[in-house]
């Protein structure tokens, strides 16, 4: 697992686009959304609501990308087979890259929170450390599930699945009520949103900004859902690797 941590961290530090990826888009996102809240003359609470969504989106994106790097780096460098020749399980792969992902996600979070506080008087600590911790942990769990699901898709369908994988990720996040409460969604979509753990973590965090919770026990529900999906994603990835060993896709993705 440490092997993956070191590798991902090294690759991150070598990547010319690292800072771009880590800083640019999230900052642009927060600034533009923040300015929009001014233009629309939202109350400070409403502005916080939207900013929380933006920050969560950035954190989840960065973290899940890092988790997906567990296989993506190898797919891109065509060295897939070496990783699967070694006596490690996929849990080592995903856990290792998740650790790096959390570090990057945390960095992004701190940066965006500071930016939000400085530019838009947004106070992340208002709900207290415990609520903040639960919220971040929720974001990271969601990232893990999404990242592992992307790994599974890519191992199942090869490089072709990449674009599809990212698209589906973004769909999931938009449904999670990033910028609006779930109650504004039409019923079938709202049902989908209720199936996404991030929805609950967002909801729980936002109660501290004066938005009554739409759910009974949001944090517990979010955790339970995450755990369920984590197991499912893990099993899917496991099955995908087995299949790739059978079809020879594992070889095709190397050399």
């Amino acid at each position, binding site marked *: 697992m440490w092997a993956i941590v*070191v590798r991902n961290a090294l690759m991150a530090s070598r990547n010319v686009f690292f800072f771009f990826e880590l800083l640019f888009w999230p900052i642009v996102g927060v600034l533009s959304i923040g300015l929009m809240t001014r233009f629309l003359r939202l109350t400070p609470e409403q502005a916080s609501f939207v900013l929380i969504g933006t920050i969560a989106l950035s954190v989840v994106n960065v973290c899940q990308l890092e988790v997906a790097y567990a296989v993506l780096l190898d797919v891109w*460098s065509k060295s897939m087979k*070496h990783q699967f*020749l*070694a*006596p490690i399980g996929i849990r080592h792969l995903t856990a290792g890259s998740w650790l790096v992902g959390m570090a990057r996600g945390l960095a992004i979070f701190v940066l965006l929170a500071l930016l939000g506080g400085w530019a838009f008087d947004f106070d992340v600590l208002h709900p207290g450390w415990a609520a903040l911790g639960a919220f971040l942990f929720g974001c990271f769990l969601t990232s893990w599930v999404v990242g592992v699901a992307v790994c599974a898709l890519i191992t199942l369908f090869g490089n072709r699945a990449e674009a599809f994988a990212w698209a589906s990720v973004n769909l999931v996040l938009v449904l999670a009520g990033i910028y609006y409460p779930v109650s504004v969604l039409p019923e079938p979509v709202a049902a989908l949103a209720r199936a996404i753990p991030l929805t609950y973590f967002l909801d729980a965090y936002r109660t501290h900004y004066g938005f009554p919770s739409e759910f009974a026990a949001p944090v517990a529900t979010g955790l339970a859902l995450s755990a369920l999906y984590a197991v499912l994603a893990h099993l899917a990835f496991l099955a995908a690797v087995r299949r790739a*060993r059978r*079809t020879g896709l594992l070889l095709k993705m190397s*050399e």
Partner: protein
Amino acid sequence: MLAIDARDVVKTFRSGWFRPRETRALQGVSLAVPRGAIVGLLGPNGAGKTTLLSILATLLTPDSGRVTVLGHDVTREAGALRRRLNMASGRPSFLWSLRVGEIIAFYGRLYGLSGSTLRRRVDALIELCELGPYRRAPYSELSTGLKQRVALAKSLVNDPELLFLDEPTLGLDPDVAGRMREHIARLRREQGITIVLTTHYMREAEELCDEIEFIKGGRILARGTSGELKRQIGLGEVVALKLDPPRVAWLGEAPGVLRCAEADGWVECTVDDAEKRLPELLRALHAEGVIVRNVRVSEPELEEVFVELAK
């Protein structure tokens, strides 16, 4: 004790969503490799060499057949087996921006090495594969020969008992390829590693391998030492004689002689076994009063065997 015991291995690749295609990559291959041996899989492109190697290395699951490697079943006990083997290929590919030392260390960690053990192993491998000056060079900037040496170093990181080398000298200059072969021969000599390598160079197989498996179209067509292979094909050995008088009529019908031809004043007799036939021929010629001025014995090139088999 066998390092590899594979029986009737079959593997068919299915590809294409619209028009499914089937490639019968292996059609019942059996292979037995004793510990400490170097065995070569020799065959043209698309013969199934890489497929067979990948199955033995647990990267691919066979459709049917029984495969036992180092006493482990490759599908049921893959985890335990993976610790004890490793693989390198002649067209290696690693994370482009990592440095040579980092690549070896990364794979070392995957095999559970850490701390000073890891550092010592990486140092030793860099020394062994003569990569010292390139330790800090990014992988993408290395030449083909160096990349292959990195691959070899990586494949030794877990101190494997069994090593698979897929076309280890592919695309190398002759002298660089020669050095790579020396490295390989030394691994077996000094560390007793069992090695299975694939190649489509006859010379390489002849020089390195105790036994050669000739594989084509997913089947093993012939096996044996290079000498046995030559005999098996019936190419025989050539006994060339310079005689006085220059022609002897009965030579073509002598026992063990497959055919006779004349070239540049030499009579070239292809015989089944030169060691046995040459004294017989000399005795017969002497008895006839023919003077033998010169004798030359040559083995057929494995190349000719290859051409013969590939037909």
